[in-house]
């Protein structure tokens, strides 16, 4: 298997810019998809009108302006953000646990965040926190407890694939029973709670963008600060330490950042599985595991993947839509089995 030579630094920069433009173009095209029929030309006019002149010509349908700017635009932005977040978090979890089967969903960390949100909503904890921040804070509290439990359950260091996966399964079972209990005692709010366990972008709005954007972007940016430490984590604990890595400190900081990113993603979209498993794996196969190179690609690919999955989810059926989490799981579960059966499950 060949990977693109890593010394071709400028090639990577050009590639990255080209792929970013492709993502922007896809965003514009996918904006015109949906139940309300808005042509691509009209979409362009409404979007450019909104950005450049803030006025729209008379012949444009007012409801189309609303649909594009208040419904579809926040939705595509959130779907991209969440994909980026999950791909970045998956990359980091795989390095921290030195295990290619790690993913915030498989480890139960997404479920932890979802449970945190549901519990926060039911108990009224969220109301105590002013503004829109009750949501991500509840999610973070749930997610960080799940992360710490997984960390200690799986034996702290040098986690074997089986012990890590079993810890994740146990965590998911445990949280889903807690979630059922919550549902049982709050039957009047079932709709509200179930949203978090079945990932969807259908309730996207600009408020949620406002929650996700700063946390996810700052979280992702801070990962680049640790790019060399992430590389060293792939080598293994003892070797990395003899090469100068302050393992414990770096691992804890990275655990907190990746949990925060995951919590932000879950708090705006619910649980969307397998993105953090598939994307880092494929990108490593193409450009190699060096994080300075693979992380930007993984983030772009993650955004692109969920954008496509969501567009598919909301336009495949004529009158209703499928939760996007179902689409990503349909793609992810077979990939997961392929990895399990393959020798590559050990290789990062």
């Amino acid at each position, binding site marked *: 298997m060949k990977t693109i030579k890593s010394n071709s630094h400028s090639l990577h920069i050009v590639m990255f810019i080209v792929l970013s433009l492709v993502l922007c173009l896809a965003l514009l095209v996918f904006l015109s998809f949906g139940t309300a029929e808005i042509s691509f030309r009209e979409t362009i006019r409404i979007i450019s009108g909104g950005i450049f002149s803030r006025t729209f010509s008379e012949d444009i349908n007012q409801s189309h302006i609303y649909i594009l700017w208040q419904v579809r635009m926040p939705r595509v932005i959130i779907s991209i953000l969440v994909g980026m977040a999950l791909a970045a978090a998956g990359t980091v979890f795989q390095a921290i646990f030195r295990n290619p089967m790690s993913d915030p969903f498989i480890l139960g960390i997404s479920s932890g965040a979802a449970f945190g949100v549901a519990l926060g909503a039911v108990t009224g904890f969220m109301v105590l926190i002013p503004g829109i921040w009750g949501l991500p804070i509840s999610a973070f509290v749930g997610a960080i407890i799940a992360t710490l439990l997984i960390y200690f359950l799986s034996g702290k260091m040098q986690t074997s694939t089986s012990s890590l996966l079993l810890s994740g399964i146990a965590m998911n079972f445990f949280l889903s029973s807690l979630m059922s209990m919550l549902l049982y005692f709050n039957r009047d709010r079932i709709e509200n709670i179930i949203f978090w366990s079945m990932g969807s972008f259908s309730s996207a709005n600009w408020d949620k963008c406002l929650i996700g954007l700063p946390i996810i972007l700052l979280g992702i940016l801070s990962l680049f600060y640790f790019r060399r430490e992430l590389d060293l984590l*792939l080598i293994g604990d003892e070797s990395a330490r003899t090469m100068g890595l302050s393992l414990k400190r770096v691992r804890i900081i990275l655990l907190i950042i990746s949990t925060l990113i995951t919590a932000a993603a879950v708090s705006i979209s619910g649980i969307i599985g397998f993105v953090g498993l598939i994307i880092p794996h494929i990108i490593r196969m193409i450009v190699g595991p060096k994080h300075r190179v693979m992380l930007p690609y993984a983030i772009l690919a993650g955004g692109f993947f969920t954008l496509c999955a969501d567009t598919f989810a909301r336009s495949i059926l004529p009158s209703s839509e499928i939760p996007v989490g179902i689409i990503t799981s349909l793609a992810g579960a077979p990939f997961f089995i392929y990895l399990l059966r393959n020798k590559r499950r050990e290789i990062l």
Partner: protein
Amino acid sequence: MKNMTNSLIKFKDLHWSYGENLVLDGITSTISQGKFTSIIGPNGSGKTTLLKHIFRLLPVDSGHVFLNTKDINAYSRKELAREAGLVPQNEKGLYLFTVKELIKMGRYAHTGRFSRETKHDRDVVTESMKMTSTLHLQDKIITELSGGEFQRVIISRALAQEPRILALDEPTTYLDPHHQVEILQLLKKLISVKKISVICTLHDLNSTLAFSDRTLLLNHGRIQHVGSPESVLTAEIIKKIYNLNAVIMKNPLTGKSMVAIDNTLGD
């Protein structure tokens, strides 16, 4: 040169146990500079554990480890990495880095977070690859290497740390005879050319006799014998420690001592 005191590493009454199992039972010894020091002993005698203590990979129960007369706990991780490099036994190489990428990681302890790679960094990496004859492998992916190639790459990565000490944990155990000699010759070369001190755990008694300057023989977590390999590996000591009947003779090819072992167990 100020640092000619000759004592590079000093263990002082070092104890370490794993659960109820006392692995190191009061190790006191010094390892001197610029030599090939071999650590030998039966399985479970504490060789690897002793090596790990040089790198502060395990917490000390009691006792001290000194490096250049300074307590090892006074070093930061990066400082330690600039002093000593380790070639571990158990690194599996399950990653898709290229050879060059992996060796470059050895520069981690020398580079700041925001500093760019300098010419010196590049030179050290190239030099490390040349010393270990891995330059031609530089664009290969680690998982494609043979055992001997991988071992040389890991040595090269440790050399990129520009260490004064190179420690290796049974570097020849899984290699065929040709590659064993190749690695041990390389270590000799590093001592004479780069003035590096080599500390190496070994199982093979003949390699120990042929290559080391000084030998520490461990058993049950204690240093049983220490000195030149010829003085440590006598028929009597081999009988006592390994429970094997051995004869020491002259290797007709090298003129050095070698061990011939009877193929029955001691008793």
